[in-house]
C-alpha cells in the first residue's frame, strides 16, 4: 500500500471531527473522498499531511509509520498535498516557485554547493511541468496577478514538482470558472499513472469522471466505500449526500 490509515481519530474539544477512519491507497490509485460540508474531509487531509496531529490511529506511507513526522518530512517521503484555498508564493513567478520545489525535491534548496547549476537545471524542468499543466504562457507572471483558475493549476504544478508518490488534491476545482475547468480536468488526466491520488472534491462530475474508488465521509466517519457505481447506487450515500441525481 502507498498510503494507509488505521483508526484515525481527531477531536476539537468535545467535537469528534475524524472518527476511526481507515483508508488505503495502492500504487496508481484514483481515490476520491466525498461528503457534505463539515464531514471532516479537510481535517483528514490536514492529518495526513501533518498540519494537524491525530489523537489516535496510525498513518503509513509505503508501509512506514509516519505519525508525528513534520509536514516537510512527509513531503520529502513523497506525501504531497494541494490546498483547498490557494496557498501560493504571491510574489514569485510560477517558474521560480516550481523551480524552487524541484530544487527542494533534490534536497538542494538550502545548499550552497553548485547552486547555480542546480537552479538552472531546475528552471528547465520547471518549464516542462508548467507546460504539462498548461501554464507555460504564465511562467513569468507574478503569481498574485494570475487568474484564479491559473493559480489552481499552479497548485498542482507545485505539488508535481515535489515528486510525489501520493498526492492529496484538496478540492482542486473549487472556485474554478466553468470556462477554465476543462484545462484543470486535462491537467488531472495527465498526472502520472503510477501516482496514488486522493481527491477531495464537491464537483461530482469531476469525481465520477476521475475516481476508480470513492469513500464517503459523514460526520467524521466513513459511511461507505466502493466503485463509483456502487457509491452512486448506495441508498445511504444518496440519502446523506448525493440525492437522486447520480443513479
Amino acid at each position: 500500500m502507498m498510503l494507509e490509515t488505521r483508526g484515525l481519530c481527531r477531536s476539537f474539544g468535545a467535537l469528534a471531527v475524524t472518527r476511526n477512519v481507515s483508508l488505503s491507497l495502492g500504487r496508481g490509485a484514483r481515490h476520491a473522498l466525498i461528503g457534505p460540508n463539515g464531514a471532516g474531509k479537510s481535517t483528514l487531509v490536514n492529518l495526513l499531511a501533518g498540519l494537524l496531529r491525530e489523537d489516535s490511529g496510525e498513518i503509513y506511507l509505503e508501509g512506514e509509520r509516519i505519525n508525528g513526522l513534520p509536514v516537510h518530512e512527509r513531503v520529502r517521503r513523497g506525501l504531497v498535498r494541494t490546498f483547498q484555498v490557494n496557498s501560493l508564493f504571491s510574489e514569485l513567478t510560477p517558474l521560480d516557485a516550481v523551480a524552487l520545489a524541484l530544487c527542494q525535491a533534490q534536497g538542494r534548496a538550502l545548499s550552497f554547493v553548485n547552486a547555480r547549476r542546480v537552479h538552472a537545471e531546475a528552471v528547465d524542468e520547471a518549464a516542462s511541468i508548467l507546460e504539462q499543466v498548461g501554464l507555460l504562457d504564465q511562467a513569468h507572471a507574478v503569481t498574485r496577478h494570475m487568474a484564479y483558475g491559473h493559480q489552481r493549476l499552479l497548485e498542482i504544478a507545485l505539488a508535481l514538482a515535489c515528486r510525489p508518490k501520493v498526492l492529496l488534491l484538496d478540492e482542486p476545482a473549487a472556485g474554478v470558472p466553468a470556462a477554465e475547468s476543462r484545462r484543470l480536468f486535462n491537467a488531472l488526466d495527465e498526472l502520472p499513472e503510477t501516482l496514488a491520488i486522493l481527491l477531495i472534491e464537491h464537483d461530482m462530475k469531476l469525481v465520477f469522471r476521475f475516481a476508480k474508488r470513492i469513500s464517503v465521509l459523514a460526520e467524521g466517519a466513513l459511511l461507505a466505500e466502493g466503485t463509483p457505481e456502487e457509491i452512486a447506487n448506495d441508498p445511504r450515500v444518496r440519502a446523506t449526500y448525493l440525492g437522486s441525481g447520480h443513479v
Partner: protein
Amino acid sequence: MLLFELANKASEWTGGLDGMLDIEIAPLFGVFEFDMAGRVGYVYCAVVLFAWFLLARHLVRQPFGLSLHAVRLNPIRARAIGLDTAAALSRIYVLSAMMAGTAGALLAQTNQYVALDVLSFQRSADVATMLIIGGLGQLYGGLVGAGGFVVAQDALSGLNPEYWQFWLGLVLVLVVLFVRGGVVELLRVGYRRALVQVRRGRP
C-alpha cells in the same frame, strides 16, 4: 534594553557608561594607520561592505535566496513543498549574525572606542528605521535606507533642530502605510512606469 542594562552592570568588561576606552588597534595589514580624518577607516569599511554585499547578492539569486523569499511569503506552503523552514531561518540568522558581528568589529576597529549606546534602544530603532525606509526584504533596501536615513537626518535636523525626529517618524509612518517595499520599491515602480511611457512614446 535588557542587554544595555546587562552591559552597564558588567562594567569590568564593558567599561559601563564610560564605554570601552583605550583600545589599541594595529595599523591595517601592518601598513595603513587609522587616521583622525577617518579616510582609511572609510575605505576599509566600504571594501568590507562591498564584499558582504556581493555575497548577499550571490545568495539571493540562488535557490537558498528563493527559499528564504518563499518562507517569508508563505511558511505553510514552504513546508508543503518540503522546505525545512526552521533550517532555512537558522542558516540566515547565522549569516545575519556574522554580518552584524563584522559591523560591530569594524565600528570598534575604526573608532578605537565602543560606547555603551551601541546597545541602546535608539540604535536599534535607527537600524529598523533605515531598513523600513529602504525596503524590507530587498537586497538594496539596507544600503539605500542607511544612506537615505543619514541624508534625511542631516537635512531635517538642519531645517528643524528641535523636532527633526518627528519629521523622520512621519516619513517612516508614510512609508509603512503607502510604500511597503520602501524607497527601493518606489524607485522600481517609477522606473517601470517611465519605461512604459518611453515605449508608448515610440512610433
